[in-house]
């Protein structure tokens, strides 16, 4: 059974919609898929009653024997063609040209730009067709009907009733429908009086097929907008502060799942951003490249008004090193180091128990052990990992993935599946970025700093094999290398600055700002130079761009989606090209300036850590909206704030603590009052009375314990 598939199909659906989709799947006769869908619903929807869960258990037991039986494939022979006379049946010729033309004419009047796109669309082979007993057109996707086969119109009407119940007396309600499916639900919507409708459907072939079998003119006529790509929605509807009500037609998940999911994710998460206030713990590693990223993530979360607490574990690195340094025996050393990491892990857990959170976001190499991750899950905490490392070379994800509900990686392609198969709840691509408060142009850099940090060519980073191999040819250049692990032999002895010390972010921003060309070569321990088909883009790329510094970087497969090559970023693919481009760009400062400007504009609008963190939260919020809401509802804070409803000023003060992710304790409330000098309000005086009583009794308790006398 593929629960992951069900997860994708059902993601974001309300309970009635999920049941609706389940019944459609069941109608298709696909027992395995039905069971998988039922499993998913029982696991993920709280509304499911116990008897249904029991039925599922029975069913599971009964089906145990047949669970591996081969799937019954629907074949094209089941199609019932309804072709214009004289026309020879072909694979997709169920399209009725008359109906199509009628719909297209209507479309032309409303949305002329879409006509050609839709007419030229290719209908997927998975899309098939038949007429039901009432001669109503039914479309199938990979054998699953896109609507109830027997009564598609009634099913559409029922869906509309169920989903518009809360505003049934307001047919002017603006609606965004995700998914055309078979189109019946849209006709029903119009039939029930709704007229302020937006439609999103990204499967162009499906649109063409529906336009070819069903008269869509009634709803086309009422459509306010008809979007085919997510970007169109982002330009308009998703930007609005007052968004239309979102309705997802469940079967559309089959035909246009990924896009629908993206839109629903964006809308749901946006709702979450305004209505939920989960507490998020960011867990840093003790050391390494992801350590500063943990700080950037913390800043970004704060900038996004999230309630965040950062567990910075870097101060424990010295202890880790010192303990390791006490042993020569590798096994003993490993055991002690593991114990140290487990101790840190348990410390984080204890800290979280003391100051509870809803989401734990770990950065790669964060010392959270499986034991602790399991404990976090037991406490209902959502666990997320942003693995900002190369999945190829750092394979800790292989055993860690299963303990995380969310696993965000900086690579695409196979890794998404592999990490998923390793057991991560959900895997998504989230590249690294930059922090504009750190990575920024420094126009007022002193002459002394410019002299110290500046050069024609520079490189900041560790001396990986491919970098040594590539940069050796720059022996006769004004080239400065900053960073660790470089050989002391020539020419590096000449390049290496300040004894190869570790460079702080503040210093490397100065270097970026005072170098004419910043070289950026992604590291490799096994390649001679540029890694062919190297995929992820390193943080340095975004950081340099944000600093308004010119960089020459090896092109990565994922780079073109981040920067327009040669317009927003200058790249090279091998050593010779690097040398050529160094000469070229040194000779063309105006080109450098142009690229720098475009590059910085692009990172500002798309590649900051705020964008990344928002993206991470979108995934979590969209999936876990109800869970987080429930958690928030049952949280101490919610009870406190609710109880404070009759005391507005007290509530405001408590809200400040809440937003700051502080605990609802009197001392913190008092500290806030103390910080604000000046005349005390009536409420503040009452709080102060409580605090004096609190401290006096705390002191009395201390004296009674005899502790005070020992001071």
């Amino acid at each position, binding site marked *: 059974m593929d629960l992951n598939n069900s997860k994708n199909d059902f993601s974001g659906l309300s309970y009635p919609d999920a049941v609706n989709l389940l019944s459609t799947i069941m109608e298709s006769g696909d027992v395995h898929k039905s069971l998988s869908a039922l499993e998913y619903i029982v696991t993920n929807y709280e509304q499911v009653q116990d008897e249904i869960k029991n039925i599922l258990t029975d069913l599971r037991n009964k089906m145990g024997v047949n669970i591996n039986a081969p799937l019954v494939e629907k074949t094209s022979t089941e199609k019932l063609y309804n072709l214009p006379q004289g026309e020879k049946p072909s694979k997709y010729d169920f399209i009725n040209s008359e109906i199509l033309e009628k719909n297209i004419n209507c479309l032309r009047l409303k949305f002329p730009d879409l006509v050609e796109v839709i007419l030229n669309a290719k209908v997927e082979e998975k899309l098939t067709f038949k007429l039901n007993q009432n001669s109503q057109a039914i479309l199938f996707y990979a054998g699953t009907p896109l609507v109830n086969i027997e009564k598609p119109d009634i099913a559409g009407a029922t869906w509309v009733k169920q989903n518009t119940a809360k505003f049934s007396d307001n047919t002017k309600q603006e609606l965004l429908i995700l998914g055309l499916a078979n189109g019946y639900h849209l006709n029903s919507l119009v039939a029930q009086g709704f007229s302020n409708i937006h439609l999103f459907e990204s499967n162009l072939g499906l649109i063409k097929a529906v336009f070819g079998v069903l008269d869509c003119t009634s709803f086309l006529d009422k459509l306010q907008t008809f979007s085919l790509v997510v970007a169109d929605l982002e330009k308009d509807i998703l930007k609005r502060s007052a968004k239309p009500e979102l309705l997802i037609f469940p079967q559309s998940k089959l035909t246009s799942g990924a896009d629908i999911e993206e839109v629903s994710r964006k809308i749901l998460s946006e709702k979450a951003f305004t209505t939920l206030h989960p507490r998020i713990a960011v867990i840093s590693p003790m050391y390494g490249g992801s350590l500063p990223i943990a700080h950037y993530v913390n800043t970004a979360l704060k900038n996004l008004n999230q309630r965040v607490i950062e567990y910075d574990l870097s101060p424990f690195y010295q202890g880790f090193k010192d303990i390791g340094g006490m042993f020569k025996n590798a096994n003993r050393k490993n055991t002690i180091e593991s114990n140290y990491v487990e101790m840190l892990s348990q410390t984080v857990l204890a800290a979280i128990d003391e100051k509870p959170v809803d989401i734990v976001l770990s950065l790669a190499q964060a010392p959270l052990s499986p034991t602790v991750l399991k404990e976090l899950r037991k406490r209902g905490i959502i666990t997320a990992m942003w693995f900002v490392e190369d999945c190829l070379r750092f394979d800790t994800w292989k055993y860690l993935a299963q303990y995380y509900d969310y696993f965000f990686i900086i690579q695409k392609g196979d890794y998404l599946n592999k990490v998923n198969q390793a057991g991560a709840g959900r895997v998504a691509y989230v590249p690294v970025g930059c922090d504009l408060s750190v990575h920024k142009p420094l126009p007022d850099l002193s002459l002394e700093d410019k002299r110290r940090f500046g050069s024609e060519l520079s490189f900041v980073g560790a001396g990986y094999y491919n970098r040594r191999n590539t940069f050796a040819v720059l022996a006769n250049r004004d080239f400065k290398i900053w960073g660790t692990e470089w050989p002391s032999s020539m020419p590096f002895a000449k390049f290496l600055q300040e004894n190869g010390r570790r460079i702080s972010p503040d210093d490397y921003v100065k270097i970026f700002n005072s170098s004419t060309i910043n070289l950026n070569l992604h590291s490799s321990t096994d390649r001679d130079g540029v890694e062919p088909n190297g995929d992820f883009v390193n943080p340095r790329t975004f950081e340099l761009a944000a600093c308004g510094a010119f960089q020459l970087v090896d092109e990565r497969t994922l780079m073109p989606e981040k920067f327009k090559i040669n317009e927003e970023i200058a790249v090279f693919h091998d050593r010779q090209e690097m040398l050529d481009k160094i000469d070229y760009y040194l000779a063309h400062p105006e080109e450098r300036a142009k690229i720098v400007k475009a590059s910085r504009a692009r990172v500002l609008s798309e590649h900051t850590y705020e964008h990344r963190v928002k993206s991470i939260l979108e995934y979590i919020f969209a999936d876990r909206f109800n869970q987080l809401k429930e958690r928030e509802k049952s949280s101490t804070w919610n009870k*406190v704030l609710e109880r404070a409803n009759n005391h507005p000023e007290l509530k405001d003060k*408590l809200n400040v603590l809440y937003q700051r992710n502080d605990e609802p304790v009197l001392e913190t409330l008092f500290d806030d009052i103390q910080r604000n000098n000046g005349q005390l309000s009536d409420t503040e005086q009452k709080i102060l009375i409580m605090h004096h009583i609190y401290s*006096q009794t705390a002191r009395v308790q201390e004296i009674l314990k*005899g502790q*005070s006398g020992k001071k």
Partner: protein
Amino acid sequence: MEKNNRKILVLAITRIGDLLQASPTFAGMKEEDPDCEITVLVEKQTEAICRGIPNIDHVHVLDLSMLVRSVHRGGEGIVEGYEYVDNMIEELRSKGYDMILNMSSSPYTALMMKMIDAPKKRGWLADDEGYRLITDHWAMLIAAFVFHSNRDFNSINLVDIIRCSAEVKKHPLKLEFVTKQNEKEFAEEFFTKNNIVNDGPILALQAGASQEKRQWSPKLFAKLTKILVEELNARIIFTGSPSEAPIVEQILQHYQSPRIVSAVGKTNLGQLAAILEKADLLITGDTGPMHLSVAVGKPVVAVFLASALCFETGPYSKGNFVIQPIIECSPCNPNFSCYKTDCHDHVTPEMIAFLTKLRLQTVMGEESKIELPQQLKNYKKATIYYTDFDEEGFLKFIPLNDEPNKNGQAKEFYHTARAAYRSLWKEDFSGLPFNTISNSSEVTKIHPWISGVKDALNLSNEALNYLKLLESAVWDKTVGAKELSIINQQIHDVERRIEEVGLTNPVLGAMIRIFLMEKENIRGNDIVELASETRVVYQKLINRAVRFNHMFNFYLEDKGIYASTN
């Protein structure tokens, strides 16, 4: 304000003993204004005692335990606690009190005082920013003696300070507690049941104390009991709360007799008062039962150990005997534990037994005729006092033995300083006459024991000069902000140096602490007004220093020091 039909609120979030200590104030208020209406705000646990204190019209209870639980719980407890405080404040506000007296020195009652409107407020207050504000001199005196090093120089009892703070002059010269009929019946039955008959003196013994260091050893108590039973043929009743039962058990392990009965843990406050009322005398430390005993009219022999100081909280009625050990560390700081209670050994069972016998044999009011045996008269490790009242109705402690030297100071030093302060405060804060000393502001002679007076006077005069300079500089347009700021800084420096004088001369500590409090009370933005008010405060310090010096010299030369004012 006229004393007529006043509605008075007394914030009495204190211990049982403190509430009893306010009883003369309540009585005085009623005597001076019979139609006044007295409401006391008390903590739930002390509510019961109010039933026996006469003259209280209403009791408003603060459930401190509930509030403490709420605030410590956090979360919803914060709102719960807030609502409780909110309701309480609003209810008290709605009563429209004419006067509020704060008996406590806790910051939260000071805030409560601030929050409830009343034309007259006495005791500790808070300002708009929540900081302490004490405008009433008698309350300042309490605050001054909170500083531990100042305690040795006070001889005005807390009962009188509370009373004066409430501006009460007439009072019954004793604490008051009235036992109810059912409580008397309980005592009667207790006596009958335990066969406590009048075949010898009936003595109550309170062995427990509020702090471990203030509790005399059970072994010594046992020895005392033995003497009392065997030499005085006394009947002994041990009193105390249930938590004090183990102490009495230990005493009884050392000495048992059919003439000893334990009422420990068997009585409520009223019943205990009724038992004390039926007994002849109570032997005790500085405890709640001590106050209860004098409140029901029975004398005490009280031992003031460790942090207890008889001048502050001694038994408030005529004719009690008090033993105050003399040791360098006495009285010690109540906030610290003691691991070596040497002061306990300064008091002997024989001494207490003797004083008990003496008290029982001496006609009340003839204590001044008492002549101690030579051995006790020359005893150097403790001072034995009896209590009496001076002409103005202030409690005084008169030593029966020769006072020993303490802390390397001549024996006269502490008594003289206490007597000088006593007169100074009465004259300064209540306007009571003290005609025996000239009103000259000239300093003729400064005794070397109080040489800090000279520094205080010099510095105050220096400050007055700066203040004059500041006032004229404000009007002089040629003087810039920088110069004004320099003068201001110089005034601050002088103030800091005066504070140092108080710290380095403990005998002047209270006077200078009061000066600093008066300075703290000066608020505002107008430099001229501030300077003018500051001058008044410095002038007061000068006057007090001069008067203190006069009085110190007077008492040092006066042989009738105890008989007259101390």
